């Protein structure tokens, strides 16, 4: 910021997914000066989702991007300001907090951490080297490339099964590979996937390595019950195949792991009011330790965090 009088926001929200946008909407509506920082894309994980069928009210035009666009519009209508910035660190000491970014130092009386989570890797040989070369974590980005080809999808939750059905719009055949003996996904989704003519399912099985020179040409699978390993290679006429990975998420806590308390899985621990141990620092969305990570819980967290931040900022003025 080049202002001679340095701007101190009432609240800076880190992350512009559903949690951050909901926090922004509530904070701005409460007349707090509100800045939402986003690193690369608005919307977080949901922006890459084709269909959001379980967020109450999102029935028509229920794609991730359209839902995000409406959330952004709503937050901005109340006066929340969005900025693209890459955060490199924080100073949470004292009543004025500092956020260090590639756009300079930003100051606020309160902070809401809503950085979300990123896809977890399979963590097998070949995966990183072939990422973007047939290994993907984003179906809406990359499914098209596998039109009329074979695709293996790893994972057993809602995301894995829903994305597998999306990929099956393009691919010739989709095989869902899951480590356990049953799926974690909602029953209705499992049923739909099981009845899908292009989808096959392989249980009790995991990836051992991903094979390919320059692009994915095969995978090695391990059956956890028999211990048997086998290589599955792409049809020679295809020459390549797709591997989509939806095996859960890892919280984006790299910048705050030494500042706030984390649970055993690395998520930030808060009380039910989204508070951390640091006065003025709140948390919302997938980055928080909780039992259900959905758009609906992210937006609820955001609303609570914003209201609590407002109360905290008000108390500073008393």
């Amino acid at each position: 910021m080049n202002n001679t009088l340095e701007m101190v926001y009432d609240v800076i929200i880190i992350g512009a997914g559903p949690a951050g946008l909901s926090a922004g909407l509530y904070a701005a509506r409460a007349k707090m000066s509100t800045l939402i920082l986003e690193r690369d894309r608005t919307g977080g994980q949901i922006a890459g989702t084709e269909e959001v069928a379980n967020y109450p009210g999102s029935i028509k035009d229920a794609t991730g991007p359209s839902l995000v666009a409406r959330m952004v519009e709503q937050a901005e209508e109340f006066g929340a300001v969005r900025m693209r910035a890459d955060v490199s660190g924080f100073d949470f000491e004292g009543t004025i907090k500092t956020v260090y970014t590639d756009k300079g130092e930003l100051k606020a009386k309160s902070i809401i951490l809503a950085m979300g989570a990123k896809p977890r890797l399979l963590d097998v040989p070949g995966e990183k080297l072939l990422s973007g070369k047939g290994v993907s974590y984003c179906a809406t980005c990359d499914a098209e490339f596998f039109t009329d080809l074979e695709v293996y999808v790893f994972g057993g939750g809602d995301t894995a099964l829903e994305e597998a059905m999306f990929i099956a719009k393009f691919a010739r055949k989709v095989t869902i590979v899951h480590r356990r003996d049953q799926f974690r996904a909602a029953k209705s989704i499992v049923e739909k996937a099981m009845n899908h003519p292009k989808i096959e399912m392989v249980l009790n099985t995991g990836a051992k390595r991903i094979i390919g020179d320059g692009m994915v040409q095969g995978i090695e699978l391990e059956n956890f019950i028999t211990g048997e390993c086998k290589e599955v290679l792409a049809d020679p006429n295809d020459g390549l195949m797709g591997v989509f990975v939806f095996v859960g998420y890892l919280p984006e806590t790299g910048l705050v792991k030494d500042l706030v308390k984390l649970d055993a899985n690395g998520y930030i621990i808060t009380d039910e009011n989204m508070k951390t141990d640091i006065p003025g620092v709140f948390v919302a969305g997938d980055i928080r330790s909780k039992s259900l990570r959905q758009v609906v819980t992210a937006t609820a967290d955001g609303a609570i965090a914003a209201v609590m931040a407002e109360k905290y900022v008000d108390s500073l003025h008393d």
Partner: protein
Amino acid sequence: MLILDKDNFESQVLKASGLVLVDFWGEGCEPCKALMPDFEALESEYEGKVVFGKLNTSQERRLAISQRVLGLPTVVLYKDGTRMGECTKDQANPAGIKELIAQHL
């Protein structure tokens, strides 16, 4: 900004001299849409040094695969028609693209 397709890719990229930077994007790819304004802004910064182009992989899937692009967004740098390097996925951001150009400028 060059708009690339299978008809002009060879002449404008593979047979071009100097540096050509190609943004492979797709119609359903949200991260690609987020990157596009940054990519367009970089074009003026490198005017006269690097030619910028974009390729819609939803329309030109086979061409993209022939360039070993199977994940989006991917930005590939060519020098005298030879592929020098790329930024893909998380690395496909302004800082990553600048670094890629700096290595070959």
